[in-house]
């Protein structure tokens, strides 16, 4: 097992060239917090990006930060805090949910490669919406860049979108440029009691049909709500977060309470609650597999109904019902979730945490339709024809 610890893209290029020659498959790692995502693979070597760190340039007034891929999210967060700004997609700390031990928030490269976003994704966009540009070495061993360092740019193909969520299978990024935004002055969360899941989805839809600008919306079943300290003695609670300047947030929460009732969540409780919701980290009572399901919000209740009849599951929803975090065991659950998704207009199911050997029996990522799979293979070949980088991590042969 060879471990390459590059300090710059020239070193990465050398490592890729070496692997090309010796027909090796290399794993790309920085913080290692997301190694549990995707298929179980063995590699011939590792490119460890943990020495490629540092904030290269940060211009808060331009809303632009350039940072090296191996930089810890703690360091990124500290710089943002200092300028009173944020990454609006609310990158969650996945360490706890992924059960990798420790509390490391991982690296910015890992967050972008996995396209991981938190609760504000619903209204502000995903990680992929905030990657303005990058510089990388492809699996061909060639240095290339895409995008730019300004917030508005349509020059050439938007390869940033492709890099986000490609799990290191196309290229190894070094410097990445992100769009930053001012942090809201304050936030306030409102909890509304509902009898069942579909009523919670409908309530949230009604909240989003007002001009009061909700920013995030989750649905917690009673047990989870109680444990998080936001229970209302109802079967479910809808949790709605509003952000902005103080007088605006107060005013909007007031309007919503007049219309929908509900209670305001204690401020001290609100922040950690949304951190846990963002990270899918509320289904952790017992060690179970954790599934992440994205679907149209109006389909979520039907999926839950079918699945909870047949399996012992723990679950909650984010993104107004469009994101389900489901804890439960066995690959049959995954199969049935995928069958349920097939009946929706669109969506996908990914296995996020495997506490047993579920991945031996089911693909962790949603299998692709044949035509889409063929296109994925051609895209992979366009960047990494010898399959040097994270080969097979997402899908067989990719």
């Amino acid at each position, binding site marked *: 097992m060879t*471990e*390459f610890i590059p300090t710059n893209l020239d070193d990465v290029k*050398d490592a890729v*060239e*070496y692997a*090309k*020659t010796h027909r090796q498959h290399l794993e790309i790692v920085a913080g290692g917090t997301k190694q549990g995502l995707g298929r179980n693979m063995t590699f011939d070597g590792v490119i460890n990006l943990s020495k490629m760190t540092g904030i290269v340039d940060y211009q808060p*007034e331009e809303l632009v930060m350039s940072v090296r891929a191996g930089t810890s999210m703690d360091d990124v967060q500290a710089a943002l805090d200092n300028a009173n700004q944020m990454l609006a997609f609310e990158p969650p700390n996945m360490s706890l949910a992924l059960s990798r031990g420790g509390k490391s928030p991982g690296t910015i490269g890992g967050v972008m490669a996995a396209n991981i976003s938190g609760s504000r*994704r*619903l209204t502000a966009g*995903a990680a*992929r*919406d905030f990657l303005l540009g990058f510089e990388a070495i492809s699996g*061909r061993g*060639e240095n290339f*860049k*895409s995008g*730019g*360092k*300004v*917030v*508005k*740019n*349509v*020059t050439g*193909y*938007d*390869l940033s*979108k*492709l890099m986000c*969520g*490609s799990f290191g299978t196309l290229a190894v990024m070094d410097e990445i440029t992100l769009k930053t935004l*001012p942090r809201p*002055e304050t936030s306030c969360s409102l909890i509304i009691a509902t009898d069942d899941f579909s009523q919670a989805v409908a309530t949230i*839809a009604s909240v*989003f*049909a007002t*001009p*009061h*600008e909700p920013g995030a919306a989750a649905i917690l079943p009673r047990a989870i709500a109680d444990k998080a300290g936001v229970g209302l003695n109802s079967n479910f609670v809808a949790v709605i977060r509003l952000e902005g*300047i103080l*007088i*605006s947030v107060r*005013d909007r929460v007031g309007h919503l309470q007049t219309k929908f009732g509900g209670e305001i969540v204690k401020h001290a409780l609100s922040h950690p609650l949304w951190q846990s919701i963002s990270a899918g980290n509320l289904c952790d009572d017992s060690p179970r597999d954790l599934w992440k399901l*994205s679907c*149209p919000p*109006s389909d979520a209740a039907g999926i839950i109904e079918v699945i909870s009849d047949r399996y012992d599951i723990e679950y909650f929803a984010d993104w107004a019902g*469009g994101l389900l975090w489901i804890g439960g065991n066995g690959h049959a659950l995954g199969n049935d979730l995928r069958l349920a998704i097939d009946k929706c*207009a*669109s*969506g*996908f199911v990914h296995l996020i945490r495997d506490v047993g050997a579920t991945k031996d029996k089911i693909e962790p990522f*949603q299998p692709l339709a044949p035509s*889409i799979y063929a*296109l994925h293979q*051609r895209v992979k070949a*366009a*960047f990494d*024809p*010898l399959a040097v980088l994270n080969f097979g991590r997402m899908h067989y042969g990719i």
Partner: protein
Amino acid sequence: MLMPEPDQRVIDRRHTIAATLKTIVPKRCVIDSVESMRAYDADGLSSYRQLPLAVVLPETVAQIAAVMKWCHANGIKIVPRGAGTSLSGGALPLADAVLLGLGKFNKILDIDYDNRCVVAQPGVTNLAVSEAVKADGYYYAPDPSSQIACSLGGNVAENSGGVHCLKYGLTTNNLLGIEMVTIEGEILRLGGKHLDAGDYDLMGVMTGSEGLLGVVTEVTLRILQKPATQRALLVGFDDVTAAGSAVGDVIAAGIIPAGMEMMDGLAINAAEDFANAGYPRSAAALLIIELDGPKIEVDALISRVETIVRDAGATSIKISQSDKERDLFWAGRKSAFPAVGRISPDYLCMDGTIPRRRLPDMMIRMASLSQKYGLRVANVFHAGDGNLHPLILFDANQPGELERAEDFGADILRSCVEMGGVLTGEHGVGVEKRDLMGIQFTEEDLKQQQRLKCAFDADHLLNPGKVFPHLHRCAELGRLHVHKGKMPHPDLPRF
């Protein structure tokens, strides 16, 4: 601008090809008489004109797929076209290519308030989406200036923005799903009413690909509740640098306005002559800053912004007290292009982006280029996101002036890249900026982009001659050099 040499053998077969197309789609869907094809010989970049081989206006997705499959099998090129409003020549026809018009796909298919989205065909205009959901308080955020005419398929192809994209994003940030047809005639669905790709974000790559990767046949768009209140400030400065700093100060204060526009002296006066918007004629720079949201928030932020611009040296400040007054503030800005068209026989509109802090340098550079080329330039500017729209004034009837104006424009875009910016913020590369791509990108960068193209369209049949200055054959791009395989840094310990 040189287009790829048309294939004479294809042109010679024009009548046979048109006849065959009439067997694939209903006869009424094929236009092949020279007179009728004239309507399609240019897009918004009207200094370039070219008759296509034939125009096909399909009526169903199956027909699109059949036409593309046949063209692919027979090596015939295709130029997709929406409403033809591109400012960069993205829909400029080619003499040896079928022009595939999506104009008949003009239906909104589904308005889904439960999931806050609209499903529409690609020929629906941008504004029609907002109109369709207006009564229920919703709208579609991207608002390119051509929104009454431009179509959604074109918006996806160009990743269109608009004056409000500072706060609400471009098309790519408001698009949930597409259906597309590949050059092989295969129908693919990417995304949908759910969020995120879960795999390679091919929809993200399709967005802004300028018709080179596939033809969009359906879109799913995110819709938002219309902000309760919109108010604007109209702020004059006697110095462009001060206006530029004011823009930075607003953002540094944590405020993201819905729109933040700047105009220079020449543009202010042209617009005022045209629209009587009450602009301060003596100002060197004018800002329009629009805030939107709940009334209490907008009122509070308006007064914060007022303080910021006053501290930055504003010489005049007006705050809209009604929607009518706000519309008037915008009337001048929105008529800036025709207004400039009135003071000059012709103009070229450029579209680079720079880091905002470089604005004063850019204004100095533009003044000196204006002297060098002996041509005037009026500036309108999406100031919030650094997107410049210099309008170069010229007279095409004067020999050599068009070329001089184009050289001037190229120098401006070179300066954008040199200052850390990019060639195009929202109009696209098309044919207009194709030959400048080498300024922003290395040969390796461009080759990697073209390899992606090869994954979608290995024979370069879709919209060739656009975006990329050199067309490399996919076989050549795919060649891989493997070095002898020495261990890098053999002296270093590995573990």
